[in-house]
């Protein structure tokens, strides 16, 4: 297991987690003493397969889950000694829809502001601002149950932002959202981050983490496998797989010296390329064999490839552990 803390020492940590453990009543140990730090202003991804401990970690930070041991601080506010201070700095967008389905959109957002002690007039203004930004203002009098899935997700984001938290936590914010809406939500979150809001997200769309986040932690079986910058992480990806669409109907994969190749349907070739090799050799050899490349794409996004390898390695290590 490799755990690397962010090396730079910023003025403020948005989130500090030390030795966090969670054992559920069933005896299942969801977190085995994780350490995690997110700097102020960061766009941070917490990645991991299902059941890895992502939601448990975020649940503890949001005080929806009781921890078994460890320390959590939000902008320096310890949740054991100054829970209200921590909560005031925190906005949460959970994975599941968790609003009253019978209440109207505007009421849901203003009520949430009220829970943070924001007076009604200010709460209404803030609710209007975020509902407009998220394209929900024309639905303000609609009961939440009448909204589409994408609108419900945006409603939860508006609700989480209404008290203008410094740290926004999003658990699978774009699950089940179509590509167009996902892109618009990315743009919105990037704008929030540019304006100073620290963002932590979990996502199954690794493309999302690669596009948005600067720092990443990978968690599996309740342990942090990596905690570093996206840039640093991607340098660890030695091999990428490309799919080349050719102008020929190939019966077997062309043999390319120094590269591993496989057929990927008629006329498409999968090629594993090490970082040090570059792609020129692939094109030169195909050209020599009279095969023209019509188009090219990566098999999966880079982070996804790396993520899968790490999780698979971790699973293999787990299998041989007595």
């Amino acid at each position, binding site marked *: 297991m490799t755990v690397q803390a962010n090396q730079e020492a910023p003025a403020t940590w948005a989130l500090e987690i030390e030795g966090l453990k969670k054992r*559920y009543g069933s005896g299942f140990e969801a977190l085995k003493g994780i350490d995690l730090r997110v700097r102020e202003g960061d766009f941070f991804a917490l990645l991991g397969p299902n059941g890895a401990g992502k939601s448990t970690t975020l*649940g503890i930070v*949001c*005080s*929806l*889950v*009781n921890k078994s041991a460890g320390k959590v601080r939000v902008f320096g506010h310890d949740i054991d000694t100054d*829970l*209200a*201070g921590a*909560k*005031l700095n*925190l906005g*949460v967008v*959970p994975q*599941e829809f*968790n*609003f*009253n*389905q*019978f209440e109207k959109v505007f*009421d849901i957002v203003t*009520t*949430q502001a*009220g*829970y*943070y*002690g*924001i*007076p*009604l007039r200010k709460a209404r203004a803030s609710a209007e601002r975020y509902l407009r930004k998220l394209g929900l203002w024309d639905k303000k009098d609609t009961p939440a149950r009448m909204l589409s899935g994408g609108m419900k997700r945006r409603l939860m984001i508006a*609700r989480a932002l209404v008290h203008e938290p410094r740290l926004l936590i999003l658990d699978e914010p774009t699950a089940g959202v179509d590509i167009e809406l996902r892109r618009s939500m990315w743009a919105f979150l990037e704008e929030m981050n540019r304006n100073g809001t620290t963002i932590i997200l979990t996502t199954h769309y690794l493309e999302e983490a690669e596009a948005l986040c600067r720092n990443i932690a990978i968690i599996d079986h309740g342990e942090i496998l990596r905690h570093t910058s996206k840039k640093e992480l991607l340098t660890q990806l030695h091999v990428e797989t490309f799919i080349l669409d050719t102008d020929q109907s190939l019966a077997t994969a062309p043999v390319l010296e120094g590269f591993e190749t496989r057929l990927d349907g008629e006329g498409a070739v999968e090629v594993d390329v090490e970082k040090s090799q570059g792609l020129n050799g692939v094109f030169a050899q195909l050209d020599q064999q009279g095969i023209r490349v019509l188009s090219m794409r990566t098999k999966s996004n880079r982070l996804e490839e790396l993520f899968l390898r790490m999780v698979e390695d971790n699973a293999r290590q787990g299998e041989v552990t007595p």
Partner: protein
Amino acid sequence: MTASAILTAFLTIVVREIRRFTRIWPQTLLPPAVTMTLYFIIFGNLIGSRIGSMGGFDYMSFIVPGLIMMSVITSTYANVVSSFFSMKFQRSIEELLVSPTPNWTILAGYVVGGMARGLGIGLIVTLLSLAFTRLQIHNLPMMVLTVFLTSALFALGGFINAMLATKFDDISIVPTFVLTPLTYLGGVFYSIELLPEFWQGVSMINPILYMVNAFRYGILGVSDVNPYVALGMILVFIVILSVVSLRMLQRGKGIRH
């Protein structure tokens, strides 16, 4: 949180609770009004006219305080237990749990929200009763204090029930099998003087008997029990249930993993 922020959070919960039960008024406000009107007509007028006097008053006047109290108790309890359990069920309780609202403010918000419905129903039933009898107030402070404290007590009871409930069946067990029998046997329709001595003794362990009688004392000036003892008892129960509720909230019983 500052005191004014806590007050805002408290009022937000109360307003949301009031908005909830007024939005579904055919389920919350109308049924007790209809039921109590039927009680007044059937028990008060039709049957009551053959019963004669009870406790020195005509039967209609005798049962009105008990019926008001019965509607307050059941409505307050039902409001808190159903509202809080629905929030648990829909997980919208998480909206409150992630916020900095202190636990005691959450509890107070639900209790006052439940009291708003219970006392509102009490007022509706009182107004309806004026169509059948003349109400003369014997001791206004006693009447008001009893109905407020009783309402607060049953709001707390509903809150604990909702915290413990894991399915919808669990929120109807107590009202059906505990509250209703205790209320009917709590001297709403009769004076316990009519019972044999043994059953009078048994009745004395029914807490609702004390509340109904204290309230009846406030209106009619008659009671089977000492109304001041009754008030003291309600206060003690309020303190106990408040402590239990707050401890449950603190531990996150049924609402945090």
